[in-house]
């Protein structure tokens, strides 16, 4: 698949998505900007470059399409903005985020039939199992496409992930690429203080996974790592990417702590954030 966008164009789109994120969260004075900003580069790379899928019409089964499952559903702003910017639904709908009668629920849901969402997430630890089930259905259907799944690092504290990690390796689910957003932060503080978790790659490798490192806030590195991850598919082992990111990336005052995990900027902070994120393809 040839790239439709240059690295610089993808960076521009990522800037626009980051603008959307802070504006969406500001408009409703709730939501999770920190992790959303940190994972923006990955989602833009997936939806604008790496994944082979049809933006329209949305097909729930995703036959002959690459599929993305967001397990850490609280970073819904980045998912919604990226999908809208990719043409899956109208960007104007971003203004309804978290409001009554919106399809853009606080956490992603299929219940309101928002195109692009295949599973509800928010209660943590469930997405990798669902992604693995989707990967199995693709294998049964001789569908050669790939399933991608993003989790948070704090989310690995949920035991169900380790059931899925064990299962996917034992069953040689090799059409699955998982990402762990290693930003080192969770609601109550740094993951180091709350539940120290070291040697992630060794742990996954001991379970039988292939592992990669990635700078999740460097678009060129994201693209090359994703290319490498795809080249490792089909050899009997699932792939996990340890994705180093900065929570709040792109907005200086949101970076460097867990403080912006789940709070909204005020008017002044919004103006400050937007001044750091040049408008690229037009605000919604």
């Amino acid at each position, binding site marked *: 698949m040839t790239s439709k966008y240059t690295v610089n164009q993808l960076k521009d789109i990522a800037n626009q998505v980051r603008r959307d994120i802070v504006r969406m969260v500001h408009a409703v004075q709730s939501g999770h900007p920190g992790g959303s900003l940190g994972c923006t580069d990955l989602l833009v790379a997936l939806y604008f470059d790496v994944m082979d899928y049809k933006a329209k019409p949305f097909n729930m089964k995703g036959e002959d399409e690459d599929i993305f499952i967001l397990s850490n559903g609280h970073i819904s702003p980045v998912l919604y903005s990226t999908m809208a910017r990719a043409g899956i639904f109208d960007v104007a709908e971003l203004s309804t985020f978290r409001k009554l009668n919106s399809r853009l629920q606080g956490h992603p849901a*299929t219940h309101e039939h928002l195109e692009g969402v295949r599973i509800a997430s928010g209660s943590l630890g469930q997405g990798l199992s669902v992604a693995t089930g989707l990967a199995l259905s693709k294998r049964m259907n001789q569908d050669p496409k790939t399933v991608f799944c993003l989790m948070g690092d704090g989310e690995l504290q949920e035991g169900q992930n380790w059931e899925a990690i064990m299962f996917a390796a034992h069953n040689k689910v090799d059409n699955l690429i998982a990402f762990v957003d290693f930003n080192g932060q969770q609601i109550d503080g740094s993951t180091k203080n709350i539940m120290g978790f070291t040697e992630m790659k060794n742990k996954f490798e001991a379970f039988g996974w292939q592992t990669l490192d990635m700078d999740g806030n460097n678009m060129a590195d994201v693209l090359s790592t994703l290319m490498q991850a795809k080249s490792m598919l089909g050899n009997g082992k699932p792939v996990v990417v340890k994705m180093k990111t900065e929570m709040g990336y792109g907005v200086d005052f949101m970076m460097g702590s867990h403080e912006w995990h789940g709070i909204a900027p005020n008017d002044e902070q919004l103006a400050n954030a937007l001044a750091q994120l040049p408008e690229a393809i037009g605000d919604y």
Partner: protein
Amino acid sequence: MVKIEILDQKDTRSGFGAGLLELGRSNPNVVGLCADLTGSLKMDAFKKEFPERFIQTGIAEANMIGLAAGLATGGKIPFTGTFANFSTGRVYDQIRQSVAYSGKNVKICASHAGVTLGEDGATHQILEDIGLMKMLPGMVVINPCDYNQTKAATIAIADYVGPVYLRFGRPKWPVFTAPDQKFEIGKAWHINQGNAVSIFCTGHLVWKAIKAGEILAEMGIEADIINIHTIKPLDKDAVLASVAKTGCAVTAEEHQMNGGLGDSICQLLALNNPRPVEMVAVNDSFGESGTPDQLLVKYGLDTVNIVDAVKRVMKRK
């Protein structure tokens, strides 16, 4: 009282296994998943004939529910199998978010429900599963009464698009419904016509209700006996028509009083036609080790308890 013949003695879980095998042959989208209880769930025959459509998840029920949600998203019809306790209470949030709220076509098939599991004791004897499952929006809840009905229900739920909880049990039990019957979700089975009292029964206690009906008939009391195999959606028309005729009701189930069939019947009657009800169910208690027969007696779920409940409720008319 109509005469109901015992055709055989078989466990309802074997009805599930037989139904699943037939589905495997007729529907290529049906996938079986089991969490290390393949023999107990009678899924061996399906596994043997369709190894490429059988998924052994190991002792990891949460992952099994998530896998099933993913398989359903991809267009498969997953049937998960484990004990009722591990099918519901253990994985409630997984079912709530990944299956029910997400509207996935997953069939949660649960064996060893209730006290008739027997000697394993209360850790395994879930008596709360019907309540847990029926509270989830959109979840269908079915508790068949014998081998043939369980087999027919298993086959029927594959044609229904949406999440289903199918509950069955461990012990050998009288088989008294027709082989190769057609199962209609949400359509109650009117076993006996009577005017004195309505008996609404589900699961293993349907047979006990039939035996109670025979005893009552000898006493000159003709009971209107209705098998509510589908607790949700409830066959409201059948329940209301019966109580309009009889003026009182007894419910019988192998479940807690809280959250079970009796609770659904009481809600329906309270809102539409308040009449006296007596409930044969477990009264806010855990079970314990023992034989199924001993436990049914100790926990007040036997024929005599239904007869006594009828006498009580008729006095309250």
